[in-house]
């Protein structure tokens, strides 16, 4: 019985519960209270996880520590069995860190700053509900990484679904409703299949204890049962990860989710799938793993190449990053598919690295979207380096880290995964894995290609002026509407249509400068924060901007570069990316002992 793990789950849960009893004081005081509450609760959780990392016995990383094992539902053999070891510890810390940073991002800064979902806006943005949802989400994520009981793991795995659904569906972008439904249906289908797989394991072995099952290494289950169970469990995790043909929920969900939603989705939720493969599928079903691994590897490689190619074709920044996740998770899955210590270590390393880097990418992309009012790359124009030099530098840094530059965290995971594929575990066809390795290598080149292409389009080049149309009647300058939609504009609109924007929004685009209008679907936070910060409403070409140069000069200064609270949220990520890039051993020392027991290597 360890109070630390209980507290890790209990603090956010109690924080969420306390919100239900929040007194209905006056609005301003309540909002202040909410900001402090979110920061304190998530900060406390983060502090607990740091304490956990500090008191963790690193000499004994393979063994679950801080074990708590209580009976919960004897009728189902379900025990409240928590523990932490070398592969779950980094993920727990990552989760609490990212949640804390999300709250820093949300809670600091002035109410008018970009991305302020907690700021007041017409129609109500329900800040209390947002804080509540994020805290419940945190409970589910931490619990998934701590659970050592198959059914308990599943319960926590499911806990995240509803909060994430609401984060997308309530605070998301324009097509949020459809994206949220797609997200929850896909992942639920995955988890139901996962549940069947877990129950199949249970019906064959009669226990739900993950550590006991991992030690048994599949005894008591025939190879065919193991293969079947691995397929079921694997499909469940592959949807979450996501693996190539099951990934289609991801781009929509990421694109529509608010910044904090995207960060947690990419940073932690995807890791739950890969963690499940490492924790449940491979150690408990070793024979099944050997049978299915070539297929897993093949799908992973297809995912790498497909993700990269899809990224090349994207015009929306957030969507591109979402597809890049498909590619990166492909590397992680390829690492698992090798079943070698090197590959699995690489996969786990890539997991953490992807969590840090993609979280940073989504933070920066969200910041860009909130400033420009769009994340469409052609609409962004170029020349961000000159207009928002710090933001552009951060974007460059995150992209370079993501494409796997040696010396940054993204490199080691891919390198080790490919290394693992060079010499896969016994029982796997080496020529096949060499092909996988070659294709994966091609994927790294393509990854570099699309990131550099994006950077050249967005950060470099000549800046197309973006005119900020004041959205409040008080600061209106006449004559502006007459500039109307120009060539660029039409372009933008077509693009939006390509993105599958629903028809009601067509109204809004008829005269782009409106951009607000509140109400219904139009009241997306993006549009509203754009409205409150009086930034972009539409882009016009340079010729048009000449006409309205007066407006431009006044509004130009209103697009703030990186603000303090943003920096506060991002600097820890940058530091960790550098740390793990330069000193990968910090993480590998932690995961390696566990991996050796998982794959049964000496």
């Amino acid at each position, binding site marked *: 019985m360890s109070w630390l793990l209980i507290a890790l789950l209990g603090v956010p849960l109690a924080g969420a519960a306390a919100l239900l009893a929040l007194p209905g004081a006056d609005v301003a005081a309540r909002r202040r209270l909410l900001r402090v509450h979110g920061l304190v609760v998530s900060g406390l959780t983060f502090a607990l996880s740091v304490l956990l990392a500090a008191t963790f016995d690193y000499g004994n990383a393979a063994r679950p520590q801080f074990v708590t094992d209580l009976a919960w539902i*004897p009728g*189902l053999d379900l025990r409240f069995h928590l523990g932490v070891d070398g592969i779950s510890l980094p993920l727990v810390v990552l989760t609490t860190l990212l949640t804390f940073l999300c709250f820093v991002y949300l809670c600091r800064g002035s109410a008018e700053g970009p991305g302020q979902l907690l700021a007041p806006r017409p129609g109500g943005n329900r800040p209390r509900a947002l804080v509540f949802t994020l805290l419940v989400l945190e409970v589910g994520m931490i619990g998934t990484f701590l659970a050592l009981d198959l059914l308990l793991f599943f319960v926590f795995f499911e806990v995240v*679904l509803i909060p994430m659904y609401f984060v997308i569906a309530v605070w998301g972008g324009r097509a949020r409703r459809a994206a949220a439904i797609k997200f929850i249906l896909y992942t639920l289908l995955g988890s139901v299949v996962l*549940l069947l797989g877990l129950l199949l394991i249970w019906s064959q072995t009669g226990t739900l204890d993950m550590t006991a099952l991992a030690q048994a290494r599949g005894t008591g289950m025939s190879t065919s049962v193991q293969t079947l169970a691995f397929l079921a469990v694997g499909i469940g995790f592959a949807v979450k990860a996501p693996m190539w043909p099951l990934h289609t929920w991801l781009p929509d969900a990421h694109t529509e989710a608010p910044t904090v939603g995207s960060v947690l989705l990419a940073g932690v939720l995807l890791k739950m799938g890969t963690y499940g493969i490492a924790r449940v599928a491979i150690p408990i079903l070793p024979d099944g793993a050997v049978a299915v691994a070539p297929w897993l590897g093949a799908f992973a490689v297809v995912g790498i190449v497909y993700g990269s190619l899809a990224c090349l074709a994207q015009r929306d920044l957030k969507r591109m990053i979402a597809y890049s996740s498909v590619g990166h998770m492909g590397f992680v899955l390829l690492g698992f598919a090798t079943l070698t210590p090197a590959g699995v270590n690489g996969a786990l390393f890539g997991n953490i690295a992807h969590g840090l880097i993609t979280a940073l990418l989504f933070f920066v992309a969200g910041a860009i979207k909130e400033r420009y009012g769009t994340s469409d790359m052609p609409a962004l124009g170029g020349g961000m380096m000159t207009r928002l030099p710090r933001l552009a530098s951060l974007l460059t840094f995150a992209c370079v880290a993501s494409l796997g530059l040696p010396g940054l965290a993204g490199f080691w995971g891919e390198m080790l995964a490919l290394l693992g594929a060079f010499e896969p575990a016994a029982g796997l066809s080496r020529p096949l894995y060499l092909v996988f390795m070659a294709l994966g290598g091609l994927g790294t080149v393509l990854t570099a290609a699309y990131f550099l292409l994006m950077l050249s389009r967005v950060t470099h080049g000549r800046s197309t002026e973006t005119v900020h149309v004041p*959205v409040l009647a008080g600061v209106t300058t006449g004559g502006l509407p007459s500039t109307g939609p120009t060539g660029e504009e039409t372009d933008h609109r077509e693009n939006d249509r390509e993105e599958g924007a629903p028809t009601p929004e067509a109204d809004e685009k008829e*005269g782009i400068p409106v951009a607000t*209008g*509140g109400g219904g679907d139009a009241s997306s936070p993006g549009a509203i924060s754009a409205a409150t910060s009086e930034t972009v409403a539409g882009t016009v070409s340079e010729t048009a901007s000449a006409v309205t140069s007066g407006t431009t000069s006044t509004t130009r200064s209103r697009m703030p570069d990186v603000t303090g609270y943003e920096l506060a949220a991002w600097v820890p990520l940058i530091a960790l990316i550098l740390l793990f890039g330069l000193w990968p051993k910090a993480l590998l020392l932690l995961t390696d002992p566990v991996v050796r027991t998982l794959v049964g290597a000496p």
Partner: protein
Amino acid sequence: MIQSIDYYAVAPPLVLALTAGLVLLLDAFLPRRPYVRTALGAVTLAGVIGALAVVISQAVRAGDPLRTFCVPEGLLGSPQAAIGAIVPPVTEPTAPTAAVAPCSFVVDDFTLVFAGLALFAGIVVVLLSATELSSGDIPVGEWYFLLLCTLAGAVALPASRDLIMLVVALELVSLPVFALTALRRYDGRSSEAAVKLFLVSVVSTAVMLFGVSLLYGTTGTVYLDRIAHVLRQGVSAATGLGPGSGGAGTAYESSLRIGYDLPAVVTVAVVLVIAGFAFKIAAVPFHAWAGDVYQGAPIPVAALLSVVSKATGFAGLILVLVVALGGQGATWVPLIAILAALTMTVGNLLAMRQRHAVRLLAWSSVAQSGYILAPLGIRNDEAMNASVAYLVFYAAMNLGAFAVVTLVPRRSGGGELDDYRGLALQRPAAGLALAFFLICLAGLPPGLAGLFAKIVVFRELLGGGGGWLAVVMAVNTVVGLYYYVAWVVRIFTPVPVLTPVSVTGSAMTGGGATGSAVAGGTATGGVMTGSAVAGDVVVGGVRTDGRGAGWIPATAAIAVAAIVAIAFSVAPQLVLDLVPSGLIAVG
């Protein structure tokens, strides 16, 4: 010879029946005053709680199951004396169970679980009734009388261990419900629902009676355990004694032949009995009545139908299938499996298309019937427990959902799903409660009760070799989630402040004047929203005027259901402990 009656064993239905009579008398003799309505409700509630107290006291009592209405030794004839004797006489004396006097009324774990469930549901339904009756167009005394009769039947049925008692109890549950459905006078929809329910129920009773009479005809007994005994003997006799037993006469040989022919008739009987119960639990293909009846009936009656009526249907089905026809598993197991798969699939697909709240609940409860039925579709004696556990979870969740639906005003004769928009913002408690119950029904955290209920069933299916059924159920769970979550989202979606129409209008005039666009939007949209808000206020006003304090009992009902559902979520072991530990005690 006089039968001794154990009044303690029959106390729960007796208390309910006496309360029913008392309510009718009070209604007739008390002066017509406003307080009478409340007083009758209180008496009814006291009766139900009293019965529940007896059930609880029976549950905590250790020892053998209580038996009463037993056939005294002297009167016990051998089954072979009946018409259509089929079993060779030589095997009769060796039967061990035949020596025990069969009893019609047995109180064991199984009985207590179902009785407790029915009475708990009864409390919620009585509380909901108080809200429904406060509108004043339903005769109060009759309502409570009929309700108590139904509950008496629901408590008596799981204790029945003979076919006649079973049928009588089932009819006692069904008949008052027709009247309850039609009690809201001058309402075409509810009359139509009542007629539909009546016709369906009568047909199903007829079908079931036919099956029951065939069973009686072939076995010569109405006691469930003796039926099982006779059927087992019939089979063993037919297989064990071949044509080689020379010394017997021709009569014996012909009876042997009949014994060998036994399964054909019994199969017909089994199918007919299952069909009869399938009507009661609204299983596909006998489900079509559910939508119209649930929608037309007053909501407390819909809750009654979906929980009490359904639970008794399942109790009867389990009793007949497991106790009487346990040996005929080869006949009914595949049949039930297919019925379960069809029921959950069709129910979910129909529910997906609904826009009316009660209809959605109706079809979703059809789908839930499928989940409850599923464990019976595998050949395993323990599987029945999974069904019972699911039923208990389901009762708490579904009652809660119906309770909130009662409370939400029906705007413009509707009760459409869209009327639930923004419920969580206008009435946070009701909105959160409904969302919780729906998520429970969908089987997702935080509705852990539903999740564990599904896990119990899945486990039983996978353990018992019903893999394909588990996969069908898995897919159905996802389908079910879709419509439950769509409803939950409506609860949390604010009613739009501005309409998009106004935005287009002002956007045409010029984007620079966005401020005026917003202002214009407020102006033009304000008319529509304003009227909507006004409508709300009017509806609210009518509700508070007309129903007075009617919301208090419904709120209490929601609270009761919510507490139970949360308790089940936190500690599902409560339910798993409730579930009968052993097999059903024979009569």
